[in-house]
């Protein structure tokens, strides 16, 4: 059977009582081990979508099914990098990254015995995103981009089955960003997990994702789904290929259409 790993069925999300409609009739099916990207205009409900899938929020109508089970509360298999880094200010960067290991099984059980080993892993991970030497610093002693990278490490450290990244590279310069693309792709190739990536950078989506979902303006709906068959592993060279730029261009046009078209629809349609 090929049931989807993540399955959203006509999901609607309303904040407050009939106030703000964030998502409207969103339907998505993501296979196990698939890397998908979600793009769409600001405020269209991308972050809300992630919160629904991870179980942090419940849909107003419709169902969210992950791994065959309806989501009724926070999942235990998720690694999430929030749009804001939200590092805990009373923990050092290293301790922030180690946080999931203190919570999620089986690491939690093993942590006491193998702390040194786990710490080594966290340090290596921080080093890989360019934060070697900052393990002992507190989050508020890091620059915006550094916080974001630490937050990314925290989402990855416990090797979750479902990874959710909400604009994880937004505060980074192009080069750091591209380096991290490669690192992330590496990780994913070695141990395929399911990834939902929210991004504004179409090149990022095209570089990383198997499937790209384009969302409409608020209230968000999936208006376009685009398979990305570019061969893996993709490299910086790939980004200079014709296929790549065409893909980016195509996505661009879709979003452009979305933005223009919807301006005539009343704000809180439904």
């Amino acid at each position: 059977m090929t049931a989807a790993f993540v399955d959203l069925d006509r999901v609607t999300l309303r904040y407050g009582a009939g106030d703000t409609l964030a998502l409207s009739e969103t339907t998505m099916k993501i296979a196990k081990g698939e890397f998908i990207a979600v793009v769409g205009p600001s405020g269209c409900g991308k972050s809300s979508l992630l919160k629904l899938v991870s179980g942090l929020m419940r849909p107003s109508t419709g169902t969210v099914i992950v791994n065959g089970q309806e989501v009724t509360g926070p999942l235990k298999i998720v690694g999430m990098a929030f749009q804001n880094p939200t590092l805990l200010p009373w923990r050092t960067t290293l301790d922030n990254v180690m946080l999931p290991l203190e919570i999620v099984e089986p690491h939690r059980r093993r942590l006491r015995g193998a702390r040194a080993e786990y710490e080594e892993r966290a340090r290596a991970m921080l080093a890989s995103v360019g934060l070697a030497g900052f393990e002992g610093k507190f989050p508020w002693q890091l620059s915006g981009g550094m916080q974001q990278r630490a937050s990314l490490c925290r989402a990855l450290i416990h090797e979750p089955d479902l990874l959710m990244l909400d604009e994880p590279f937004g505060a980074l310069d192009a080069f750091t960003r591209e380096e991290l693309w490669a690192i992330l792709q590496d990780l994913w190739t070695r141990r395929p997990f399911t990834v939902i990536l929210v991004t504004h950078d179409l090149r990022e989506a095209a570089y990383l994702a198997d499937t790209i979902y384009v969302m409409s303006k608020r209230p968000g709906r999936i208006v376009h789904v685009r398979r990305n068959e570019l061969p893996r592993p993709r490299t910086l060279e790939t980004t200079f290929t014709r296929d790549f730029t065409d893909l980016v261009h195509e996505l661009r046009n879709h979003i452009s259409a979305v933005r223009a078209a919807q301006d005539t629809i009343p704000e809180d349609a439904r």
Partner: protein
Amino acid sequence: MTPRAKAVVDKSMPLLSAVGLFVVWELACRLFAVPEYLLPTPSASFLAAWTYRDAIWMHALQTLLTTLGGFALAVAFGVLLGALVGSSRAVYRAANPLLIGFNSVPKVAVVPILVMWFGIGTVPAVLTAFLISFFPIVVNVATGLATLEPELRDVLRSLGATRTDILLKVGFPRALPFFFASLKVAVTLAFVGSVMSETVASNLGVGYLMMSASSRFNMPLVFAGLLVIAAMGIAMYGAFSVIEHRSTRWAHRGGESL
């Protein structure tokens, strides 16, 4: 002012202000010829403290231990109840009126009941110190937990953390500044409680000392007792102010200037 000079002034501020208070107090007493039975001069009080130092030492030790006992109980119970109240709306609604009601009641009224149950001496004093001081801890811990930023909570929830995990990993750390603020209030209340209980029924402790001194019209000794309590309160505060400084540096990262 050079930074170094500033730091020195800063360090000696507490001393300066205390000395200042005593000087003003002494001068006021002398200038307005305030009679001793109304308000003794600090010098007379210090003299009395020195004269009766052995007795004061004994009584102060008793009061200190009693207070610490009650305070320890209050911290344990307060944090527990605060966690319950702050993390569950139902407990909050159920417990709040009872807590508020209980705490509006002067504990002086409760001491006699405790004495009747437990006899005269240390037990009612410890219990009074406990009963009077746990409430601020409950309120502040509960508030700290209730005002936890949902963003921080979501970090834990997204990992599938249990309620206990969330409490331990973000609730408590986040509530620490609230908690320490309440400790400052609670420790002073604990002293008030134990001393009060000693004045009501005991043969030991600074409360008894003050009561007996006041019945003999020895006001300097009464004030010596007050000063000793104040000093113990400050010492206690100083002790865990160090702990506060270490454990909530992140919250005070803004430094001094507003």
